[in-house]
């Protein structure tokens, strides 16, 4: 059985389910949906389980790590992704090293939640994709849902993982709709083939999956059949799933809202070319400039559905 819901409804329901299931779950911060999503009732419904730290990201994230090490299951909504730069020492240098530095005796099962990417007209400092930098940090798991079923299943998976998890959310996914199974279903580290088409494969995550689906529909009208592979997990990146899908298509686009250098897409493309050297592939990443405030300018930077479709048509013409 499944039900069709919006992404924001699925997120609130999943968090409510985890709070109901486990008294150790505590929200260290409340900005998991507010202020850029429709009211979901979560904070009101679980007011006694939500702590409201001051604007002190280092203390907030360190708090989550310490609580996770000593028996609780903290979920730490940091809000806008760039706020986590102010907790970078805790996220990049403390949480991911705890298992290793304790010889496997201690773990820090904390979930950090951020609203990443361009939410439009917030400008250069509020539209980062910082998880790209954190790919370089062993010990951290990075999840990037794109659909209601993803957020439902990956929240479930995150709370059952004994490692620190970064959940990369996106404001513009709020109203995406989709089916959610009765029982959460998402395996960390596995990609999901959302759409099947024989001409070109589009590999993406988070909001770019939704844009890839729009692009695929538009390519359909041109007689080009596109597959869309939703990564869902960025660390560990599901390389086997990607290589398998790539080998079933004449051409592949790696789409990423992060800037190209150090992005998941560029790393994946390198790994794929290592394993399947004859692959015809293109990168479609945000361009190397800050996010401008004016939406018309922003669309020059962040991949649009139109740019994805144009690149797909071009690579097929060239190959």
């Amino acid at each position, binding site marked *: 059985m499944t039900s069709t819901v919006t992404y924001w409804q699925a997120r609130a329901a999943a968090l409510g389910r985890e709070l109901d299931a486990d008294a150790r779950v505590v929200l260290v911060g409340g900005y998991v949906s507010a202020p850029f999503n429709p009211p979901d009732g979560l904070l009101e419904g679980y007011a006694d389980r939500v702590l409201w730290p001051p604007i002190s990201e280092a203390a907030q994230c360190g708090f*989550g790590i310490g*609580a996770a090490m000593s028996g609780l299951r903290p979920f730490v909504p940091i809000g806008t992704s760039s706020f986590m730069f102010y907790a970078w020492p*805790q996220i990049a240098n*403390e949480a991911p090293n705890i*298992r290793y530095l304790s*010889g496997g005796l201690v773990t820090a099962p904390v979930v950090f939640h951020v609203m990443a990417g361009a939410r439009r007209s917030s400008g250069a400092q509020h539209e980062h994709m910082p998880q790209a930098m954190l790919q370089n940090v062993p010990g951290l798991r990075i999840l990037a849902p794109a659909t209601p079923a993803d957020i439902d299943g990956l929240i479930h998976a995150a709370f059952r993982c004994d490692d620190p998890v970064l959940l990369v959310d996106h404001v513009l996914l709020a109203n995406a709709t989709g089916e959610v199974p009765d029982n959460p279903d998402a395996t960390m580290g596995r990609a999901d083939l959302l759409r099947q088409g024989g001409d070109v494969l589009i590999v993406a995550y988070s909001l770019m999956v939704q844009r890839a689906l729009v692009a695929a529909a538009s390519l359909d009208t041109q007689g080009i059949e596109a597959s869309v592979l939703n990564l869902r997990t960025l660390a560990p990146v599901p390389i086997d799933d990607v290589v398998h899908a790539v080998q079933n298509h004449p051409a592949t686009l790696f789409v990423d809202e992060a800037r190209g250098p150090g992005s998941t897409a560029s790393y994946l493309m390198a790994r794929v070319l290592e394993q399947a050297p004859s692959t015809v592939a293109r990168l479609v990443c945000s361009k190397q400039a800050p996010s401008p405030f004016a939406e018309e300018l922003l669309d020059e930077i962040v991949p649009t559905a139109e740019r994805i479709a144009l690149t797909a048509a071009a690579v097929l013409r060239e190959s």
Partner: protein
Amino acid sequence: MIERGTRPDQDEVVCRSMTTTQPTELLEPLLLARRFDEILLANTDAIRGHFHVSIGLEATAAALSRVRRSGDLITTTYRNHAHLAALGSDLSVMYAEIFGRDLGHQRGRGGSIHLSDPGLGMLHTSAMVSGGVPIALGQAYSLSRTRPGAVCFCFFGDGAFGEGAVHESLNLASLWRLPLVFVCENNAPPGDGRANDQQSAVSLLAIAEAHRVHGRAVDARHPAAVVDALEALAEEVRDGDGPRFLDAQAGRWPGNATFFPHDATGRTDVRHAQRDADDPWRSTDDPVLNECRRLLAAGVGLDHIRAIDRRITAEVEGALGRARLAPVAPPEAAFTDVVAP
């Protein structure tokens, strides 16, 4: 050097804790910590990389060993040897970790600056100056939910006050009244009416007080005084009064003057407690000698002190020998414990 007159008045210290226990109870953890580091400094050929020793800062560690209760948690720093040794961590396991051997708790993947011992409530040791301080917040919160009356002891050095995480953490701990004892091991000389040359505040306690984290300053050259101060603060925290702050003002061991520690003062000779010395380290600053002086004044014989010292020194040397023989972990250990299997 620390100027006299800037410290709390020792004449007012009443060593309550010491009247109810064995008179030499504090000497043993002090000597364990001191001999551990001195013997390490005589074996630097086996150490890889950068390291720190705790010489001169043993009073807070020894006090912790008396005040800590089962179930309490502790965060320490890159300067952690005394904390583990004083609490009774396995010395051969500590040495093995410092030498990069598989026998270490971290299997030789942490080294000196990351020593920890989960069995003692030290779950993870950040080697970043203020790295462990925010983590202590969450540990204290967990204790408040699961073990009422237990506290988290959060150790850090005076330099951590240069970083924002300490200020954020003092504020949050105070706002949420967390069961947390902040212990600053302060070996920065005060001067010019300021806490030290990197701080504009008049004292470190004044910074804590600004966040309404109350506490004490104590002369940490005198271990018995530190026990009393730490005990009193921990009791207030256990009673649910919220966090407390201890400014433990230690002397500065001359061997810390360079980037790598060096044995600037030689092996401690407890007989110096009975002799006049012309250097400030032996005459006023060394917490081990000061504790010996306190014991001598209380009627404990020097021979008794020397017998304890010989026993502990032999124990430490035995631990060193075992660690030197321990193998390095197999290559695959580099890749295990990164994430859950």
